């Protein structure tokens, strides 16, 4: 079972918010513009959007990875 999850390098993240624009179903911003990421597996229907969010992160902080243990 391929389970993709969105993970983020919290040190690289600069709170630009592009990820929340591109996949609002999984990422929303806190009061200071930093992402709150849904730790559940990314469903098939959202994978393309998640990939686009990863590709468009200007700080290369967002990652889509196959993992069993959810991080951040």
């Amino acid at each position, binding site marked *: 079972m391929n389970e993709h999850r969105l993970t983020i390098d*919290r040190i690289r993240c*600069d709170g630009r918010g592009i990820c929340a624009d591109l996949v609002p179903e999984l990422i929303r911003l806190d009061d200071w513009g930093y992402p709150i990421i849904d*730790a559940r597996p990314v469903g098939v229907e959202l994978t393309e959007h998640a990939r686009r969010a990863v590709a468009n992160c200007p700080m290369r902080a967002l990652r889509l990875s196959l993992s069993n243990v959810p991080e951040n």
Partner: protein
Amino acid sequence: MSVLAGGPPVQRGAEVLTDHQRRFGAIPPGGARLIEEIERSGLRGRGGAGFPVAAKWSAVAAGRSRRRVVLVNGAEGEPLSAKDRALMCARPHLVLDGAVLAARALRADQAVLYVGSEHRSARNALEDALRDRGGADRIDVRVVIAPPRYVAGEESAAVRCVNDGTALPTALPPRPFQSGVDGLPTLVQNVETLAHVALIARFGAQWFRDCGTANAPGTTLLTLSGAVARPGVVEVRSGARLGDVLGDAGFVAADTSAVLLGGYFGGWIAGDVAPTLAVDAAALRGAGHSLGCGVVAVLSETECGVVATARILEFLADQSARQCGPCVFGLRAVAQCWHRVAQRTVTPDDLVRIGRWTDELTGRGACRHPDGAANLARSALQVFREEFMLHAEHRRCSHQSAAWRAAS
């Protein structure tokens, strides 16, 4: 035989090598087999996380590199904890024995002693002990100074400080056991843990298990502070009743409002519950508490728990590594809210947001610093619920805390 028991008091200075060898015996040869012995002993880390030591060593040993590093973590950034420096001062050779045995087991050719800049006696004791040993251990040992910051003792921060002089946590992966000092698989182990290793190597796993409980064998060092007549560092058998331990230090249950267990990274426990608990890391974890680095700080009835919590959160916010937005801004906002609660100037907006902001701290930093602060805040809301409501809704404090000044 234990780690500190029967030893010289801290003030008299460090133990000389010959005395050490007379008391404990010469350092055993050790080797890779030691990992199995540690496994049988059930020893868990004493730095706060409580990770099984043998599993940690095996992870480092599994690294593909032929060279490894042992990082002896004596940074002790937790302000309420004194056990690590007490141990380094009183039993430096035991700590060094543990480091050497770890290096032999992992075939590491270098060890780094990581000590806080403000802990001069501990550093002197270790350096004197190193000189005392000459080069007999045949391991390259050096001392690296940690800055006086709370997060300096965090595993990845320690590694980074050794590598480039800046003690800030790094994004994981890779973890130190994969790539640490100079990019090599690195074992980061607390000084107390290594002291236990040095004894297990001499007397065996069964000797260690003869003391303590099944899930938390051996002894553990605690730092007692706050409203006790005789504060200080003590060594207790795992499983001892906290009430008894505190009683020996001159604690009066009736005068206690709450106990902070585990330090700033731990949590508050109600004054009538704490004495009933056993000093058993595994059992405490099961009950939702945390022994952490063994800090037991007693809050007396005359002190306000809300004010104390606000001070701690302010300290934690100030001590943030400041690398991650949620910690820099979120933790600061939570601390400022608590400040206003303590000052009795909190607004309705604050109360609405404080719960959400606290929840949003969990799992949103590169390290667990904001998580620890969130846990502390939540435990305070539980234990000091009435006092909190009094401050927040009625703008009163049941203690004589008129003029409240910020810590530091």
